[in-house]
């Protein structure tokens, strides 16, 4: 933010000063906290994570890869996008939305999800560098299976979203090969495999930094077309979504592509 103070012949110095102070104070308000980009190194990042970050930042230099910023809350214009495209606005409680925050950014530095995503448009690949903190524990000393599912869901989702707008997971299928130790860095590689109409199919694997250990992988899935759901190894693009006026569809209601 830049402080711009215009001085007109009629403006008295005191009101200029007051406006400047107000502007200055606003820039340090809670908005600033919400707008912090979390996808940059902080002191909790371990050596491996930092090294990987540097490697990918190098790849960004020629424009073939992009680093994705990440905030605690979704910016207002994206919320509007989502509301326009989604099912039942009655379900969304306006007053609650101001208190909410993105799940994967609901932790203090180093305690939960530390991650950054890089995207290659040419290869249709999304790579997430992830370090799971002590508040993500499952079996003692290891990352919770659900936390791994969360990061896989986030990564494949972003991969499909880059290809096509408002998308949501319909199906997620994960095989766990080895447990991931807490506070270790891993790479989550996701790849857009194919697009069939409004269905996007994405596969994903979770590997150690040296690529010698495969921790888990996510394989194909299905799509729920009407609701704009996409398989969570496949994602859906809904440019002209016709939303249902009634309550969310029941399981027994037919949904066709």
């Amino acid at each position, binding site marked *: 933010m830049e402080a711009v103070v215009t001085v007109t012949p009629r403006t008295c110095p005191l009101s200029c000063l007051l406006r400047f102070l107000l502007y200055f104070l606003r820039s340090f308000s809670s908005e600033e906290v919400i707008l912090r980009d979390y996808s940059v190194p902080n002191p909790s990042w371990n050596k491996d994570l930092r090294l990987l970050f540097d490697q990918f930042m190098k790849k960004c230099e020629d424009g073939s890869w992009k680093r994705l910023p990440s905030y605690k809350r979704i910016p207002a214009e994206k919320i509007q996008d989502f509301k326009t495209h989604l099912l039942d606005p009655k379900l969304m409680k306006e007053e609650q939305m101001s208190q909410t925050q993105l799940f994967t950014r609901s932790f203090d530095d180093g305690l939960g999800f530390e991650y950054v995503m890089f995207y290659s448009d040419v290869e249709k690949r999304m790579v997430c560098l992830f370090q799971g903190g002590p508040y993500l524990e499952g079996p003692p*000393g290891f990352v919770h299976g659900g936390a791994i599912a969360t990061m896989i869901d986030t990564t494949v989702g972003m991969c499909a979203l880059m290809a096509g707008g408002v998308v949501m997971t319909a199906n997620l299928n994960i095989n766990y090969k080895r447990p991931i130790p807490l506070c270790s860095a891993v790479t989550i590689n996701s790849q857009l495999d194919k697009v069939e109409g409004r269905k996007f199919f994405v596969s994903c694997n979770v590997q150690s930094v040296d690529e010698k250990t495969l921790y888990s992988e996510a394989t194909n899935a299905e799509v729920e077309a009407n609701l704009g759901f996409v398989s969570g190894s496949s994602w859906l693009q809904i440019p002209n979504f016709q939303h249902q006026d009634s309550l969310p569809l029941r399981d027994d209601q037919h949904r066709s592509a």
Partner: protein
Amino acid sequence: MIRRGFQLAARLGHHRGLLGDPRILPRLNPASAFGSSTDSMFSRFLPEKTDLKDDALPDASWCLNMLSLDQEFLEKTKSSGWIKLPSFKSNGDHIGLKLPSGLAVSSDKGDCRIFTRCIQVEGQGFEYVVFFQPSKKKSVCLFQPGPYLEGPPGFTHGGSLAAMMDETFSKTAFLAGEGLFTLSFNIRFKNLIPMSSLVVMDIEVEKIEDQKLYMSCLVHSRDQQTVYTKSSGVFLQLQLEEESPQ
């Protein structure tokens, strides 16, 4: 306290893929281990007296639906063989489980928290309670996702739902048959869950075969009119053995 009283070491099954261990390890033998009977498993998991904070108790953030359903299930614990599972901040608090030397990692990570108890601020994260019916190997989880679990604006993050399911699977698997690690997990999302609404998860152990527990889960609204998610999970059994305290 049972947590301090026992140190359990896990003996591995021969699941080489998970552990990457080239040795051939002994098969699971249900008859041999002290810790293999359900009763002793429960006595470890459910301490009679503890000063650990039980997070699975109602608080001011619980919606009316959740309070009343919780009450219904508490009645069932008196008459129909259901058990309410306590929920402590860390898995280590539940059973003092010790993993085998090939697999265990040094726990100098400071304050660890089980993922679904990561957000301790009342009402903001995972509010849930699990009831287990040992005779039928079934569980019910009452789950109310808070505003810090947001994914799509105004709705619950798919990952937090996955975490809740995996967590309930894991407690069910542990009590039903010493299941410990998730091997695979399949989730079909049907409908979004609005923030701070109650969902009910019905979990069943379908079969136990070849050192694996197969479970299914249905997540629905209280009135059963809306199905939110269907999922299935496979867990690996690890045989537990009691070690004499040092």
